[in-house]
């Protein structure tokens, strides 16, 4: 069969393009409905989530912006002032917000000799149980005071697979979702996402994911969560080599930058070093949750 012959029906980008256009138009309709506050039924919600998972590049918050600007443009000319009691509550919230946030290096008191839990494990358990606070904790500087013990403490750094096993055994409500490959050259990749809504923590497990050169590109995780935002949540960048275990798999902790409400899919793209705010690289893996 030669290019241009009547039998050559498969090549072309035309059917693919038509499908893309059809799905893009449908997604625009659903995003419009979502932005105007229309309650999508179950089928429509599933359809929107699927389209967003299939085409994260089409996620578009301009519909929400247009609706919000219309709401502002149409505000009545007269409006009651902010009640003084509300102003007081807001001021109190602001003070409490900063009081709750860590402002300096965290100091962990090590366990008494013989207790058996390493400072790392104390930190890990606390971070997992702390849910959203984990993201703050892991980015803080952890300083461990040396105890005045006769025998110096031995800190065993757990391997990536041990950390994952700890996560699975200590975290409530972990659900797992399989990866599907979306990019040529990654067909050999397998694995899954483990995620707990309750703990707001999770892991990515990969088999045969090509090792990246961190100076050239990094993998970046995105969490598609239309209930929270039409744009995917940044799940953090990672380098495969940093997370490889002896079994050949990579175990990557999820570093969600925001609380996740109802994840529709987890997606991995390849981005420039340091990651990006909005994905520009190829979508290589997707793990839909439904």
């Amino acid at each position, binding site marked *: 069969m030669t290019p241009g012959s009547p039998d050559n029906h498969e090549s072309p980008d035309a059917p693919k393009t038509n499908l893309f*256009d059809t799905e893009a138009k449908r997604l625009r309709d659903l995003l419009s409905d979502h932005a105007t506050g229309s309650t999508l039924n179950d089928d429509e919600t599933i359809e929107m989530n699927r389209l967003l998972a299939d085409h994260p590049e089409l996620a578009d918050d301009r519909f929400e912006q247009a609706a919000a600007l219309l709401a502002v443009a149409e505000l009545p000319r007269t409006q*009651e002032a902010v009640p003084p009691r509300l102003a007081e509550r807001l001021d109190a919230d602001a003070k409490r917000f900063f009081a709750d946030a860590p402002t300096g290096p965290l100091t962990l008191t090590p366990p008494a000799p013989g207790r058996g839990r390493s400072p790392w494990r104390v930190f890990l358990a606390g971070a997992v149980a702390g849910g959203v606070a984990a993201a703050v904790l892991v980015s803080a500087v952890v300083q461990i005071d040396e105890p005045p013990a006769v025998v110096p403490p031995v800190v065993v750094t757990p391997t990536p697979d041990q950390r994952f096993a700890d996560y699975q055994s200590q975290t409530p409500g972990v659900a797992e979702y399989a990866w599907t490959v979306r990019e040529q050259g990654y067909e050999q990749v397998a694995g899954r996402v483990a995620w707990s809504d309750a703990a707001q923590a999770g892991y990515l497990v990969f088999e045969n994911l090509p090792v990246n050169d961190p100076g050239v590109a990094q993998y970046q995780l995105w969490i598609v969560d239309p209930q929270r935002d039409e744009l995917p949540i940044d799940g953090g960048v990672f380098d495969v080599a940093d997370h490889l275990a002896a079994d050949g798999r990579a175990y990557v902790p999820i570093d969600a930058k925001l609380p996740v409400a109802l994840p529709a899919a987890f997606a991995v793209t390849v981005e420039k070093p340091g990651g990006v705010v909005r994905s520009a690289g190829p979508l290589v893996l997707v793990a839909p949750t439904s």
Partner: protein
Amino acid sequence: MPRIAAGDRAAVSECLDRYRGLVWSLARRSLADVGEAEDLVQDVFVELWRKADRFDPARGKETTFVAVLTRRRVIDRLRRRRTRPEAVETAADQPGSAAGPDVLAEIGDELSRVRAALAELRPDQAEALRLAVCDGLTHAETAARLNLPLGTVKTHVRRGLQKLRDRLDPAGGDP
């Protein structure tokens, strides 16, 4: 927002001073219950402070960011409660919107484009969009109010909003 994300406490107070009127106005426009509107305003600000690092000036102005987040939470509550806006008491109204003029000035260009796009819609299309977005009516309620078929209202609202969206970002329209 970037200053809040960097931990600047003074920026939090400035954020409150600047946007509390806007957030309050948007909440009261759609929520009949004063207590519920107050709770929503509190929720919105705590979320704003937490999400401050998410603000990207390349994607829109700060006021738009605040308005989008407020509307999301309003929609959440309307979906749960379906509180009707016509029940909003207006006896306590005072002259002038609670949203400060400086806040509205920041997004003056965007508001002008939205108003221009709205003016280009057919009257029934514009009214359907207003009822859905500003008054929080469902498509079915809008259809009953305007005496139009449900499918027509759905199309009016979708196409109307898409026109506004494309006016705000002409490069990002239909593929």
